């Protein structure tokens, strides 16, 4: 039992890291749904990069390295960056992808200028600022977790309050406008909440990887459901799962940075969802395709046998496998199809390697051909 006390759950640092990462996963997962549905998945990438100058400026102006101040600076810069993207797209012929890439990289460049400038000012030390660049989940303390949870709760609360409006914005903006809802304002509110969700994650997973926390849980959740409410809940759950498991795994293996581990965890969830989600999953899709192709093949063998039999006096005339195979040259699987038909009682063996239709098989073949005739133009 004494062993149990040293389990990771009881370690303060790890508990904080896991809690913080989990909370971050919930918030970015939930808000990411709207970004992904609006095909703005990469807005998260732009916002997180654009936050860098805000962090540097906040430090430069206040001299404070407290998470609260830096996060506010990040939020302000991220927000300005997003508005700049919107303005560029609206007021020029520049497309959204270019605007995003432009703001992302130029803001990051400005941030880098400020960071290196700070570094070279003798009185200030840059230490603590580049944890935002790559994330340093291991440095999370209780205060940081409280901040993540507090701001995250605020973001979720706003989402709950504006649920209907956000839904309209995601699916039918024009309809919302026709109802008299100021969709531009709703857009700005949603974007602000997204900015909030992103900046609280920066010090955990870092600027570069934050975009994955926005896109991936939502993309995974999308595969499991067609309902917005369920999708938001699922996405939040996936985000939390990735956050917590990433934190645990990285604590158990030496020299495994937390941020990238969390991202790999969420990538695994995405991969599993793409492959195995019911209805949309690639595996089920392939299985469905295989089954229907097989059914078609069996049916066509039955009809082939019928066509052969029609050339003889009675329809139960037996034919060899080779003869049936010749009818469906190149399709393969003839013998397996004949066996499947035998099992269903539509075909029977009339000797070694000889097959003939049963009365039920004749009826089935005729009805298949009748359907084919009816459907042909």
């Amino acid at each position, binding site marked *: 039992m004494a062993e149990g006390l040293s389990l990771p759950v009881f370690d303060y640092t790890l508990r904080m890291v896991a809690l913080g990462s989990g909370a971050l996963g919930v918030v970015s997962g939930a808000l990411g749904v709207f970004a*992904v549905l609006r*095909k*703005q*998945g*990469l807005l*998260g*990438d732009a916002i997180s*990069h654009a936050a860098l100058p805000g962090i540097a400026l906040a430090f430069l102006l206040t001299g404070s390295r407290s998470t609260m101040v830096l996060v506010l600076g990040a939020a302000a810069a991220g927000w300005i960056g997003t508005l700049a993207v919107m303005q*560029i797209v609206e*007021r*020029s*012929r*520049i*497309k959204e*992808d*270019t605007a*995003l*890439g*432009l703001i*992302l*990289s*130029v*803001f*990051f*460049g*400005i*941030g*880098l*200028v*400020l*960071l*290196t*400038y700070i570094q*070279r000012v003798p009185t200030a030390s840059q230490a603590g600022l*580049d944890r935002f*660049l*790559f994330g340093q989940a291991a440095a999370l303390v209780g205060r940081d977790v409280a901040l993540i949870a507090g701001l995250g709760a605020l973001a979720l609360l706003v989402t709950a309050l504006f649920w209907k409006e956000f839904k309209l914005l995601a699916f039918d903006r024009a309809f919302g406008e026709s109802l008299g809802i100021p969709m531009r304002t709703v857009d700005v509110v949603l974007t602000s909440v997204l900015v909030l969700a992103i900046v609280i994650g920066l010090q955990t997973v870092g600027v*570069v*990887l934050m*975009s*994955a926390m*926005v*896109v*991936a849980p*939502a*993309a995974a959740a*999308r*595969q499991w459901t067609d309902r917005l409410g369920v999708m938001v809940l699922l996405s939040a759950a996936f985000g939390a799962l990735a956050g917590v498991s990433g934190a645990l795994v990285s604590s158990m293996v030496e*020299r*495994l*940075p937390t*941020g*990238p*581990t969390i*991202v*790999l965890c969420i*990538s695994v969830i*995405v991969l599993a969802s*793409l492959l195995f989600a019911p209805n949309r999953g*690639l595996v089920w899709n392939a299985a469905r395709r295989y089954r229907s192709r097989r059914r078609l093949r069996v049916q066509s063998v039955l009809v082939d046998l019928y066509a052969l039999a029609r050339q003889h006096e009675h329809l139960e005339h037996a034919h060899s496998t080779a003869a049936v195979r010749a009818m469906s040259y190149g399709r393969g699987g003839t013998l397996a199809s004949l066996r499947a038909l035998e099992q269903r009682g539509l075909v029977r063996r009339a000797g070694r390697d000889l097959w003939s239709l049963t009365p039920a098989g004749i009826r089935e073949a005729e009805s298949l051909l009748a359907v084919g005739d009816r459907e042909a133009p």
Partner: protein
Amino acid sequence: MSPELEIQLVAVVVAVACALPGVFLVLRRMALMSDAISHAILLGIVLGFFVAGDLTSPLLVVGAAATGVLTVALVELVYRTGLVKEDAAIGIVFPALFSVGVILIARYAGDVHLDVDAVLLGELAFAPFDRMEVAGRDVGPRGLWVMGSILLLNVAFIAVFFKELKLTTFDAALAGALGFSPALVHYLFMSMVSITAVGAFDAVGSILVIALMIAPPAAAYLLTDDLGRMIGLSAAIGAVSAIAGFWLSFLLDASIAGCMATMTGVAFTASFLFAPERGLVAAVRRRARQRLEFAQRMLAIHLAQHEGAPDAVEESRVDHLHEHLRWTPEFAGRVVRESERRGLVRREGERLWLTEFGRAYADRSFVAD
């Protein structure tokens, strides 16, 4: 050559080499592919580093370029499933590859000189210290030779495939119908983007590569409609931003690459605001001019309507316009002055008379042009 001159030379070569493929990234709406590629090549650099053992091996460039192309292929694979949109496909693929790269560095390369900072941020100031030697003779900074070769490769690629690139960019369906393979051109082009991003990363870092690829072409896109001119302008804007960035960094004692990216941002902002036809200022002025023109037409119609009517005297007074047409007195004054100048109206004190030309103008306004 002095180190300062060498740095500027490298900066200009990097900026121009990035701007050339950037033009097509912007036009093909694939700007964010540069984001994905430049991040994902970290993995290729790391793997190449493990195989080759040092950061100067050409194997790194090959490995990283291959990773870039792999990224493009993976994004397309995910997108083609139809389960996610393209933006999400990009957002899923590159962070995963980047994470693998970071983890590999943290676990196996911690003791050698390869850290994420260096790859992400780059440091141009070190360019003059890394020399290229041929037969024991110093022939200049290595970065200059590497990027110079990539620049030449880009120029050659665009020159040879100009027609194909142009066609697949503006009308992929037509290109396919004419027998060009859009997919082949696409992958060749993406290989160029990857190679350029790899070559540029140790000068400016993988994130600022994006700025050098996207911002100059975006600025040029607002200045011209001609593809050839856009390529030339992008290269020029990139080069000027590079030199301006160098001097800004000199002034602030800050990161050269960061300053270059900042200056490309300044160049874009200038173009966004002041481009002769598409700039914000031009648009505002055009709207103001249209408003004034429309107001003159209104004035002519107004005077023509009341001409000869009993209320003509009342309706034709300048100080009455702001009541009837809801114009501010200042705006009314401007409209009247402008109309007088064009010979639409004649003014006697407060009374306005329509000229012959003005009457014809008002009549014409009712007929659809």
